């Protein structure tokens, strides 16, 4: 992919993330607040995908994607597991930042 195409691709993907974040904010007014963490994790996942497609920090992205997916899955295992996986995710983000 040429640099120009890469920038256009990143711009498009980031706009999609913005659209998703705004639509989520609007829909959460009518939905259970419990969906809030999931929507934010999805924003994080889509942002990491955008970084991945743009070739930004590829090694870190794989780790982040796995942990974000694990966090999303952990929601169905109960609140304690959901909290714990997100706590680990925060540690990972801090280590990578």
């Amino acid at each position, binding site marked *: 992919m040429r640099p120009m195409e890469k920038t256009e691709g990143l711009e498009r993907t980031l706009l999609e993330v913005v659209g998703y974040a705004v*639509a989520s904010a609007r829909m959460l007014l009518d939905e259970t607040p419990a969906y809030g963490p999931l929507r934010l994790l999805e924003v994080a996942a889509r942002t990491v995908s955008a970084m991945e497609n743009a070739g930004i920090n590829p090694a870190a992205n794989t780790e982040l994607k796995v942990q974000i997916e694990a966090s999303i899955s952990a929601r169905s295992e109960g609140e304690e597991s959901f909290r714990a996986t997100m706590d680990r995710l925060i540690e990972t983000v801090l280590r990578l930042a």
Partner: protein
Amino acid sequence: MDILDAIKARRSVRRFHEERIAPADVECLIEAAVWAPSGGNAQSWRFVVVQDEERIHRLRMVSPGMPGPPPCVIAVCQDVDLAGHFGARLGCEKLTLFDSAMAAQNLLLAAHAVGLGACVVASFHAGGVRDVLRLPESIKPILLVAVGRPSEEPAAPNRRREGIVFHETYGEN
């Protein structure tokens, strides 16, 4: 496939392979959907099958509940003018929802029967979906169904049986 087995084995699938769905399978899902019960036999449902990648991207922007990305989204819509003609206020306010849900359930079971996975999405911005799908004013999006070949096998969630069924009067077991 036995109907009870199909009902119990169906899962809400939220991760999909990229491959497109065969036209025959799409037709099978729609055929199942239109055989759902319909209040007053209004059949005021309308289905928009979306397989264009760009359009699905745009749908996902305005649909927080949309998993995926799925290779196919079927928008279950209702012609509210027609529903009102057949069912008056009851038709517009309630039957459109019931009919759409029953059509969606048929669609989900048909998807399961042909080896596809699907997930019903109710969390979407109706105005945004209307814009992306160019729906006329009288056509209201009720549900979105994400469909594709599953890339996950979700475990069966518990089904509670205690305290939900009563006989003759509420509270009697």
